[in-house]
């Protein structure tokens, strides 16, 4: 088998399976064959991620992490799944039954819809939409509605507070998230994810043309990832869950399988935004070096995805939770100006002649204001004397 065959293997399989279907149902069958792998692969990735996350966080805290179920504890997600499936599904008596039931379904459905436009490999995308990036963000905004439904229908103060926090946070960070991706749309001149990846899948020498290797692309990527962390409600932006003050936020009244659905939806959302970051900035399925193009394209996509997930886990193991005012200040006083500035820089880059001058100008244009903005964030803060710890080293 040639590398090309391996690269196209899933497409070949799909055509082979499709040839058995009668002509009338072929469009339906084709759609099914595209959707089912997505429905299978990403929940599997979710299962693997939960165990890797727990093990990784454990090691960061000098613990073993789960190591009992199966070899090295890798069957832990199966045990967790059995547990949450067999648990009693408690619905509060005063809850709004229908909305309470629909909220987790909407969340998971929205999370799955986002995968429709992610090119997982060469010619491997469920739907090559003309306005793919827009579709992604439109579907992402459904999550807010699901969160509100969950928080409101539970008739619980904690869940309502958690939902308020979550929605405020998601709306605040959706603005920088979209604006950070605008630079790529400007450069690519298209909203189609497939076109964006194809533009990055070329090489100068051995180096790829990923957008992250430009000043505006790098800054855009960093801002996108920060906003994505906040969108996914992950640490350090996990205020909506806030175990210590509002117990578990908007899903406090969910148990058993519905809770598992929330968990799944949250992780799927994280994977989807990571996948979008890969598509926009990290070259999608493109190999990092020209001499590695023989490796199948889907391998690169998932390798990059796992690297980003590892980054998420690492950050979660490191940073403490932000306060609400810090969160909002960061969104509106740093992220938003930086993304707007980044758009301006991308325009400057576009109209300047290629060369080192362009690099210098754009780097200065980004770096200087970012430092000033950071100082501005620092300003109103009370100075706290350095603490001495008696027992820590």
């Amino acid at each position, binding site marked *: 088998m040639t590398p090309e065959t391996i690269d196209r293997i899933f497409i070949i399989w799909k055509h082979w399976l499709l040839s058995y279907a009668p002509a009338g149902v072929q469009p339906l069958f084709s759609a099914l064959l595209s959707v089912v792998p997505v429905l299978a692969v990403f929940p599997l990735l979710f299962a693997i991620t939960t165990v890797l996350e727990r093990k*990784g966080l454990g*090691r*960061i*805290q*000098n*613990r*073993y992490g789960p190591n009992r179920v199966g070899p090295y504890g890798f069957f832990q997600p199966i045990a967790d799944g059995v547990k949450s499936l067999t648990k009693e599904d408690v619905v509060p008596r005063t809850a709004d039954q229908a909305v309470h039931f629909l909220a987790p379904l909407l969340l998971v459905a929205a999370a799955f819809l986002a995968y429709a436009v992610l090119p997982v490999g060469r010619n491997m995308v469920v739907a090559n939409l003309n306005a793919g990036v827009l579709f992604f963000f439109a579907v992402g905004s459904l999550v807010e509605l699901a969160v509100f439904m969950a928080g409101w229908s539970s008739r619980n103060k904690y869940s309502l507070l958690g939902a308020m926090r979550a929605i405020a946070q998601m709306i605040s960070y959706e603005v920088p998230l979209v604006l950070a991706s605008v630079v790529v749309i400007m450069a690519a001149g298209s909203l189609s994810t497939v076109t964006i990846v194809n533009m990055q899948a070329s090489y100068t020498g051995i180096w790829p043309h990923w957008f992250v290797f430009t000043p505006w692309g790098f800054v855009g990527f960093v801002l996108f990832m920060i906003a994505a962390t906040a969108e996914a409600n992950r640490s350090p932006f996990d205020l909506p869950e806030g175990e210590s003050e509002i117990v578990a936020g908007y899903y406090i009244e969910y148990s058993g399988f519905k809770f598992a659905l929330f968990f799944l939806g949250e992780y799927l959302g994280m994977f989807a935004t990571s996948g979008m970051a890969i598509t926009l900035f990290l070259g999608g399925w493109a190999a990092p070096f020209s001499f590695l193009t023989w490796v199948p394209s889907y391998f690169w996509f998932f390798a990059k995805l796992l690297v980003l997930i590892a980054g998420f886990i*690492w*950050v979660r*193991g*490191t*940073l403490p939770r932000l306060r609400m005012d810090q969160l909002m200040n960061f969104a509106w006083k740093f992220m938003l100006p930086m993304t707007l500035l980044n758009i301006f820089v991308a325009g400057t880059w576009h109209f300047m002649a290629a060369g080192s001058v362009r690099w210098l100008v754009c780097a200065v244009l980004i770096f200087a204001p*970012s*430092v000033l903005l*950071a100082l501005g964030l620092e300003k109103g803060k009370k100075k706290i004397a350095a603490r001495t710890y008696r027992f820590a080293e």
Partner: protein
Amino acid sequence: MLGEGIVKGLAETARNFLGSYVSKDRLTTVQYPEERLPQIEAARNFPFLVYDGEDWQQGMRCVSCLICEKECPPKCISIEKSKDKKLDASGKPQFYPTVFNIDVSVCMSCQICVEVCPFDAIKMDVDFELSTKDRFGDLLWNKERLSKSNEYYREIHPTEAAAVDAQLAEERAKLEAKSKLAAEAKAAAAATVPAQPAVGATAEK
């Protein structure tokens, strides 16, 4: 500098992450069922009834005074006092508990029963693996299950047991001396009763 603290923190966690694979000293976790920490002597979990000698029914120190039952904060002890008396280890007729139950799931390991027991009959055990699958039958421990020998007590709490043994021996010696004294006095009194009947009469009052 912007983000300096974040980078520092990330470096620290990365060092912990990688270090935990390199040096085993970093991992403080004890893998419990296979590995165990050495039991510390003052450990306590659940009370047991001490008996002297070989036979647990014969040697039970408990005299069914019901103090522990009254003092127990979560009320997990239930005792039924006997109607008759039985000779205890020192050969003295005493009441004994016909039923002595303690509920494992209710006990909070406070040790108040031990503190209040005037007979050193109830002590704290170190065994903590008391979980069971039968939540109705297996969690209420009866007299037989609660009884453990004084040798066992010496084994798990050597220092404490030695002190208790010494105290008991002392008390017993004192008692014996007293009884001997009393017997002598009785004998003497018996000898002198005909001479001084009035003294005996006032003493009886």
